[in-house]
């Protein structure tokens, strides 16, 4: 029983944080980055397993290093951030697949929250809250930056720093989600609720609220259904999210 409550808490907080990130990923059409970064987390997970440290810490550390790399490269070269993360992604996925023992590979790819400890729960809640608070604090600047970098610059927004903070938050979100949903589906945890919310929302506030709402509903349904059926919650979450997305699409068609 205690474990199911842990699962609900972890699922709700992490999906709230991830779906809020998704709003900005969609605004900037950065959907791919989330996907790519989630795979970059794999070698981090692998190293955490090898050195027997908390997988969240391992993934977060590896992601942070990758983000700094991507961020620096983006300014040194003319390549787009998608291209860069795309390269990091395949390399990291390959490295991760080599390093992670075959038995644990499935868990790393699809997530597993059947054995949560109190420490896992505390880490998830604290870091999810940090992510949400920082993101809300910068969301206005971020939105301006995403609709026009030049206009952002003209009112003194420091685009470089802002992009760095955003990427770091993204990395944090991915590291948080890895345990819940796994590397393979993490991108979907970020994107699906926001994609559904975009079909319905007319304003930015609505967009953010609906995205978080859809994320949390999917997480609750995911944990609940998986608890009954015995499936792992990650794939169930994604399927629930996909159903919400289809519903939002129908809504959108009928509104027009």
């Amino acid at each position, binding site marked *: 029983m205690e474990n199911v409550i842990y699962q609900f808490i972890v699922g709700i907080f992490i999906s709230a944080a991830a779906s809020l990130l998704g709003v900005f990923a969609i*605004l900037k059409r950065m959907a791919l980055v989330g996907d790519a970064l989630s795979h970059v987390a794999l070698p981090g997970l692998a190293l955490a397993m090898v050195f027997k440290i908390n997988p969240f810490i391992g993934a977060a550390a590896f992601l942070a290093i990758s983000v700094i790399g991507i961020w620096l490269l983006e300014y040194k070269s003319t390549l787009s951030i998608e291209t860069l993360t795309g390269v990091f992604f395949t390399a990291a996925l390959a490295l991760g697949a080599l390093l992670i023992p075959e038995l644990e590979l499935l868990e790393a790819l699809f997530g597993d929250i059947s054995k949560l400890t109190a420490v896992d729960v505390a880490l998830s809640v604290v870091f999810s809250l940090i992510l949400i608070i920082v993101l809300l604090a910068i969301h206005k600047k971020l939105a*301006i930056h995403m*609709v026009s970098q*030049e206009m952002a610059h003209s009112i003194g927004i420091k685009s470089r720093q802002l992009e760095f903070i955003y990427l770091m938050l993204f990395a944090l979100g991915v590291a948080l989600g890895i345990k819940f949903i796994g590397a393979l589906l993490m991108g979907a945890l970020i994107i699906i609720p926001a994609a559904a919310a975009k079909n319905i929302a007319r304003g930015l506030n609505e967009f953010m609220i609906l995205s978080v709402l859809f994320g949390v509903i999917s997480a609750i349904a995911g944990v609940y259904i998986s608890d009954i059926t015995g499936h792992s919650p990650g794939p169930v979450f994604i399927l629930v999210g996909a159903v919400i997305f289809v519903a939002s699409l129908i809504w959108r068609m009928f509104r027009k």
Partner: protein
Amino acid sequence: MKESILSVKNLTVKIGKGRIVDDLSFDVEKGDVLAIIGPNGAGKTTLFKALLGIIPYEGEAKWRPGIKIGYVPQRMEIETDIPLTVFEFLKLRESKNFSKERAVEELKKVSLPEGILKAGLGEISVGQRQRILIAWALLGDPDVLLFDEPTADIDVHGQESIYQLLYHLQDKFELTIILISHDLSIVYKYAEKVLCLNHKQICFGLPDEAMKPEQINKLYASERGFYHHNHDEHNHDEHHH
């Protein structure tokens, strides 16, 4: 002697090995309307970005200290279904004393109805969005407005009234305006000074004095072969005035 707002000396912008903007020197004084003209790809928008400090440059571009610059970009890369209302967009700016009343007041200045606040930023017409961008810039109480004319999507009539609007703003609020234009007749009508740019500075000064047929030919020379139609239009303009 008018107060100097911007002083540019030997400004050069290099991208890779090419000089996109090559050795420009000009001044802008308070209350000026400076039109920057030149063919497509002549470096006009690049010059704006250098003036705004978005891209690195060589030489000097000195703004009067403490000056507030409003920038109206050529376009925004947004989707038509972006979930962002006009009101939210104006609010995002977090300008001092922002309120709904202030937003409505700025909308009035750009001749837009209050009802547009509820519309989505991606749904409104390109012309309306451009006015919203001007209102957005005005929220910051700018001393100078940098206006980058869109190359397409706006009908001639709409564009004419945008210039009337800018002219009116300059007059009423003592704004200094630096604008990029492709339309020579606009320059004759509204600009006090003109800078002809085709990577290098072809001319600078009062429109009637600076824009002799020789300069115009030189300015659009590279386009002539490819855009014969355009060339005819320019000739037409010259005869017209």
